[in-house]
């Protein structure tokens, strides 16, 4: 479903991604982890063409992301994305956030979009908040709305970016519950997270990044059992002891 082949990216002279390759098959969950600044967000933003890259190739559902003839808006409308800072639209209510792209991008009728939005809101446990504005919700609630917004487009896969640490544990649980369920239903997902419990539970593979490189790309059991690289070992022991 998502295939990343030898992708490199530069900001001027600074190399953010160095020769990154990995693959996410249909129905798989792959977790990406690594220290802050290692290029995790950049990598998943390349997958839906939000960040351009200088060499290599990314193919999503048989469409080459960097291809000259690629209809990027169309491709993006099929790839769900949840941002590190959620990026809900602050001038719209939660309901409007869930409807706008359905009507404007997919051309759904307003009441159809509303039904879909409300169903998803129920699914993430926030029905009572439909008429509120994003600023009135907690971080974890906003994140769940962002998940619902991405799902409203009936995506073929999901990209999920999470900040290293910020949400309080209770919030994390509510969000993780939603995501575990998604994974169990067979959603293809690329998930940036440091929640190793989540990785253990649902990830097929774990990708460990450091300084723009994919240092380790292993099956979940292997990764937690015996990470090969020293950097990954250090990283694991650090976050597992928190």
């Amino acid at each position, binding site marked *: 479903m998502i295939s990343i082949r030898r992708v490199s990216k530069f900001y001027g002279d600074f190399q953010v991604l160095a020769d990154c390759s990995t693959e996410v098959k249909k129905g798989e969950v792959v977790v990406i982890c690594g220290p802050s600044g290692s290029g995790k967000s950049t990598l998943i933003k390349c997958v839906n063409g*939000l960040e351009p890259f200088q060499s290599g190739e990314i193919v999503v559902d048989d469409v080459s992301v960097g291809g000259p003839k690629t209809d990027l*808006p169309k491709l993006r409308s*099929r*790839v769900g994305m949840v*941002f590190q*800072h959620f*990026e809900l*639209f602050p*001038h719209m209510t939660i309901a409007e956030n869930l409807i706008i792209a359905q009507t404007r*991008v997919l051309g759904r009728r307003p009441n159809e979009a509303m039904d879909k939005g409300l169903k998803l809101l129920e699914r993430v446990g926030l029905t009572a908040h439909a008429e509120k504005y994003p600023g009135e919700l907690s971080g974890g609630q906003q994140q769940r709305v962002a998940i619902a917004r991405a799902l409203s487009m009936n995506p073929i896969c999901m990209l999920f970016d999470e900040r290293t640490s910020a949400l309080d544990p209770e919030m994390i649980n509510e969000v993780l519950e939603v995501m575990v369920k998604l994974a169990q239903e067979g959603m293809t997902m690329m998930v940036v997270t440091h929640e190793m419990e989540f990785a253990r539970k649902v990830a097929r593979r774990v990708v460990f990044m450091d300084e723009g490189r994919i240092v380790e790309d292993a099956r979940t059991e292997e990764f937690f059992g015996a990470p090969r690289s020293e950097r990954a070992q250090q990283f694991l022991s650090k976050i597992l002891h928190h």
Partner: protein
Amino acid sequence: MYDFDWSSIPGALPFLWEGMKISLEITLVAVIVGILWGTLLALMRLSGISPLAYFAAGYVNLFRSIPLVMVLLWFFLIVPQFMQAVLGLAPTADTRLVSAMMGFALFESAYYAEIIRAGIQSVPKGQVAAAYALGMTYGQAMRLVVLPQAFRNMLPLLLTQAIILFQDTSLVYVSALADFFGAAYKVGDRDGRLVELLLFAGAVYFVLCYGASYAVKRLQRRVSA
């Protein structure tokens, strides 16, 4: 001691009101055209397409570097000839109001463009990324996500600029067009009561503009709350 005599004002009120209507008309047209054209200029300048960006930057810098009164004079001189040539208008037709509106609109666009450009830049980049990630085009991202937030942030500045513009409409006196200030001047001149009329006009400008500024301030507090 100067002997004040306010008696010429009551009778002149209808004439002054006609002048006020002209001031308000010019302000309204210039604000609407200025915001529309200013938004386009701001988008051009931020487009990353060099010819458009250079054109917009040149336009803004040009108008911000010339005194308004000169721009107005040019328009009073050019627009009538232009309209005669293109629309076949009689040389005697009074085009001063149209000239004033065009001059103000084009001049104010340069100021609005800068306010709007700052407003667009104040919207976090992640918002555009989120719009794109949902499959929106550039146009949709601007129209549905960026500009509504930008305008909400800028509303107090846009209104403040409109108040300044309203005061500046008095500069149309260079064409002897009877806006509110021009009308007050004419009445005062006719009756030999210039001091009274100008004091009165000043008081009216003060009350209107101060009142409007106060309203904007309250609005600003509500928006930022």
